[in-house]
């Protein structure tokens, strides 16, 4: 397994754990309105929110910076990963729009959802980056590398 691929696995697992932790914190604390009123919950969510991309950077940066561990094939995969990231973010935003429209309709969406959309987008983006790298390795193992 290539060093970048190994790191992408670690990053994906940690990203998913952070995402599950975020949902668990919300479920345990009540509902979304609690987020607005409970400072402790907000701080916990912000810590998890910042933790996800920070962990990604800590895991991925050393391998990307060491040129001997990343060659042209890894770089090609790394360059293609944002395609998965773009799709994941697009789908998550579509899901948010549909869900919020169905739930609130013309009554107006509470402002707190803007923060939640931002948090989920960042977490999904980080997870999708790792997933994109792993899909790149998987694809290169199944189809040829020519375009």
């Amino acid at each position: 397994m290539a060093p970048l691929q190994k790191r992408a696995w670690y990053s994906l697992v940690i990203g998913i754990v952070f995402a599950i932790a975020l949902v668990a914190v919300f479920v345990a604390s009540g509902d979304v309105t609690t987020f607005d009123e409970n400072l402790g919950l907000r701080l916990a969510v912000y810590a998890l929110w910042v933790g996800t991309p920070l962990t990604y950077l800590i895991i991925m940066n050393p391998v990307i910076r060491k040129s001997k561990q990343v060659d042209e094939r890894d770089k090609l995969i790394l360059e293609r990963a944002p395609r998965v990231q773009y799709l994941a973010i697009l789908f998550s935003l579509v899901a948010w729009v549909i869900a919020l429209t169905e739930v609130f309709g013309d009554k107006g969406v509470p402002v707190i959802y803007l923060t939640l959309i931002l948090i989920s987008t960042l977490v999904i983006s980080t997870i999708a980056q790792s997933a994109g790298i792993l899909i790149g390795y998987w694809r290169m193992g199944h189809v040829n590398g020519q375009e």
Partner: protein
Amino acid sequence: MVRNNRITNNIRRLRFENGEMSQQELANRAECTRQTIIAIEAGKYVPSLSLAFKLSRVFGTNVEDVFKYDE
């Protein structure tokens, strides 16, 4: 000979003809990872022109002796 669409390569044969050179040694000398050598040998990845030249230099041959483009 490993085929990748119309590009084939003789890397595996050339490695054995060059003192049973390991994939890791070839990777080190061509400045790429062992995983890339494995992918090229299996015909799952076509290297860039610069890596193709580096590989052929390691074997002391021309690019055409390592890679072939089938018309």
